[in-house]
């Protein structure tokens, strides 16, 4: 009995560690697929931001 409890207690951290490795970490889910999504969002945001800047520049000059 005591042996059983002891071994469970000793094993507990090992089991807990193996299970708790998975954290709420959306960007690492699905083989880090969302890192690629984040990358394309950054690229498109930059390009669209530049487009807005060009648009404003063109509008200013017409006046």
């Amino acid at each position, binding site marked *: 009995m005591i042996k059983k409890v002891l071994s469970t207690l000793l094993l507990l951290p090992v089991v807990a560690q193996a299970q708790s490795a998975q954290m709420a970490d959306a960007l690492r889910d699905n083989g880090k697929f969302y890192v690629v999504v984040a990358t*394309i969002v*950054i690229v498109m945001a930059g390009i669209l931001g530049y487009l807005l800047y060009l648009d404003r520049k063109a509008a200013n000059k017409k006046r």
Partner: protein
Amino acid sequence: MLARSYKIATIILVLYTIVAGFLSPVPALAILNETIRNLYFHVPMWFGLMILMAVSAWYSVKYLRTSESIYDWKASAFAEVGLLFGTLGMLTGMVWAYFTWGDWWSADPKQNTSAIALLLYFAYFVLRGSFNEDQQKARISAVYNLFAFAALIPLLYILPRMTDSLHPGNGGNPGFGKYDLDNTMRLVFYPAVIGWTLLGVWMANLQVRIRQNTEVHD
């Protein structure tokens, strides 16, 4: 005709890159996982920067030979879009690094040298902003632009290769190209480089055209 066909090519290539970039099969590698697909979005930013800066330097040479302000505008427009691409390459690289190398900034040799390269080009625009007289501004910034381009090549392609680096392909780290970049990936990667670069050319040309319209109206 040429002006139109390159825009059509841009649209087709960028759309193809996004669809094939997300859906095409890629090698299953530890740590990299699906982020290997960033090859189609992060790496072309730097290839694009290199090509756009080369075009910019070419126009600076043309300006110095002819003193026609159109070449100065073109040089500055291409450098501006090149710098945008470099900034996007830096940001996307930091995100990628965080999830594969474990930190946004590891002071990796290639991260450091590309940061220096971007600062050199930011300085080009600071320099341009500091002149009142147009001809003086065009001439001195054309000379500076050639200096910046000459520094860009060792900063991006020579110095990082001389030491160990987290970046693939540098300092005895074979990485992409030899083992990872298989033929299926090449089928997306090369169109991606051409597509994103042509998009940059398109953006720079719009910038030049806006500038041309202003000068006529003044």
